[in-house]
């Protein structure tokens, strides 16, 4: 057990899997000598050689298609997108081939796609996106969005073990800012189980990724109002832990769904709709959503601040709910 950054937890977890399982390999742009844009695979090529840490051409469909083919031949590929935003170039492969092959012909496609995602550092419209909602809608894919170093490692291991295509969203804003205790040994954090980040009684916040910390800050602020806020970290968006969410909603009777992606058609709508349908009688207020507004992620810091949900926005939403 040692304190590690979120990034280090991912890196160490991945290295451990490469060490214990020959079938695991890494492919992506600049993952070799350079160690990846965020240095997650730094030093890996020296340790595992150029045929297990593979520098690919700049070609996302080739990367993902190659992963699927190799997976069908018994490998356990881990692809890195340089930024999650570039997954759009592999959309067709993922939704057409990887997501549907098991259903159509019984062929599992056990691949993991690592996706450095999220904003907060003026990355602009193409280096800041959170595309998990788009993929969560596609049957056959799984979407994992860890918020803590411990979960990042445990969920990465789970993703590699999983017999399905798993999109592993790593929030860039957490990479070096978030530290926590991470067990040294291998462990699996199950996909599909939420985590109570903070217990509370009055209002529930459902969220994931970097927004867990925004929610937590907001919850602290609400203490002054004597409102006790529960923060549920979904951990995985597909499958999502409906049981845990409904249990918390039933306890608090008021709920706020928070995500960094844009609002309309975002996965928050699915969660809110499900709560409103299945816990209708338990709700003391409408389910509130706090999300980014419906526009691309702006570059300028002042605009980006207006875009990404801030602690103030969550506080405001929570106060409204508390007062409802």
């Amino acid at each position, binding site marked *: 057990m040692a304190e590690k950054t979120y990034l280090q937890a991912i890196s160490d977890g991945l290295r451990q899997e490469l060490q214990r399982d020959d079938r695991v390999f890494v492919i992506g742009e600049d993952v070799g000598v350079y160690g990846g844009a965020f240095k997650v695979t730094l030093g890996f090529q020296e340790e595992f050689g150029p045929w297990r840490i593979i520098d690919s051409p700049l070609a996302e469909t080739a990367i993902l298609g190659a992963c699927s083919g190799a997976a*069908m*031949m018994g490998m356990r590929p881990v692809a890195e997108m340089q930024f999650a935003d570039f997954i759009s170039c592999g959309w067709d492969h993922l939704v057409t081939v990887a997501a549907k092959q098991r259903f159509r012909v019984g062929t599992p496609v056990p691949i993991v796609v690592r996706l450095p995602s999220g904003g907060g550092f003026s990355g602009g419209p193409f280096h800041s996106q959170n595309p998990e909602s788009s993929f969560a809608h596609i049957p056959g894919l799984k979407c994992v969005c860890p918020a803590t170093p411990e979960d990042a490692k445990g969920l990465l291991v789970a993703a590699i073990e999983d017999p399905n295509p798993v999109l592993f969203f790593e929030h860039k804003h957490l990479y070096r800012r978030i530290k926590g205790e991470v067990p040294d040994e291998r462990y699996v954090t199950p996909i599909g189980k939420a985590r109570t980040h903070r217990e509370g009684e009055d209002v529930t916040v459902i969220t994931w990724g970097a927004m867990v910390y925004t929610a937590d800050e907001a919850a602290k602020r609400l203490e002054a109002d004597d409102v006790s806020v529960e923060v549920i970290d979904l951990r995985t968006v597909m499958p999502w832990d409906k049981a845990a969410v409904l249990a918390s909603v039933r306890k608090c009777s008021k709920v706020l769904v928070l995500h960094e992606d844009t609002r309309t058609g975002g996965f928050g709508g699915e969660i809110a709709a499900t709560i409103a349908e299945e816990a209708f009688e338990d709700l003391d207020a409408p389910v509130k959503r706090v999300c980014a507004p419906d526009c691309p992620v702006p570059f300028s810091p002042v605009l980006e601040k207006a875009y990404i949900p801030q602690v103030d926005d969550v506080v405001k939403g929570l106060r409204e709910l508390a007062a409802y």
Partner: protein
Amino acid sequence: MAVREAEPVGSFNEVREAGLDRDDLLAIYRHLLVTRGIEERGHILYKQGKIPGSFYTGRGNEGAAVGVATAMGPDDVGTPLHRDMGVHVTRGVEPWRIFAQYMGREDGPTRGRDGNVHMADAKLGMIAMVSHLPAMLPVAVGCALAFRIREERRVAVGWFGEGSAARGDAHEAMNLAGVRRLPVVFVCDNNQWAYSTPTHLGYAVEHLADRAAAYGFEGVVVDGTDVLAVYREAKAAIEKAREGGGPTLLELKTLRMEGHAVHDDAFYVPKELFEEWARRDPIERFRTWLFENAELRGEEEDEIAARVKKILNDALTRAEDSPQPDPATLLEGVYATPEDLDTPHHK
């Protein structure tokens, strides 16, 4: 690297050198007949309303498909497409399962989840196509990558049409394969039409195989109606890949002898073109060759024909007995379970 235009196959000796004995030749003949038979019967089934959706055939492409499949080793894998029924047949898929697939029954390889040639038996090293063309090329390259990583002497074969050669997937796949010299053979079924689109609206090179040069490997143009020439060139390319020589692009020239699918009467294809290529029918051509070079006699021919007919009749009966899939199971296979990984496929 200039593209090479392959010679036709002349003598029995020549194919013997390429690894085929007389039994192999008769097996090829049988596969050709079964392939065409399946598609002809399928067409009838379709007209009888027994096949839902649309219906595609590979008429004219049987030699190309069977030729390549015959050249593959037992542990090689491939991603055949909608004109490549002959590949499934040659690899040993039981015809009744194909009819069951056509009819959307439980015993088809996709258990009614998908239709027509969107199928494959993983145990036979085949990977099922998707509609989106040529989305399976990067997957074939991935198979080859696995073989290369594990240093196995196996080869992947990826099929595509000359029309879908225009898509980015073809480029990304061939480029990655070229850069890493992966053991993969790209087979372009150039049947001169992409639905109604003629080749000059799809590409601006003389031969599609010219593309190989853009990726640093060899391109070979082969007459796709000459099953033996196809076999010989495919064999050479596959063995080259197996020996670490990297990819090859084979362009197999044929004519799509029917419409794009059953609803299409191909009015846009000049009649004379059909007439010209009808004279080069791959099955008739091979039959003649067998008569002239391998002492095929009328009696033996009849025997083979009877055997093929029986296979098809039995297959049809058995397929029609296959149950409809159970709607209650619809959601079962969306996500794989860990047990799914215990397949020969994922070995």
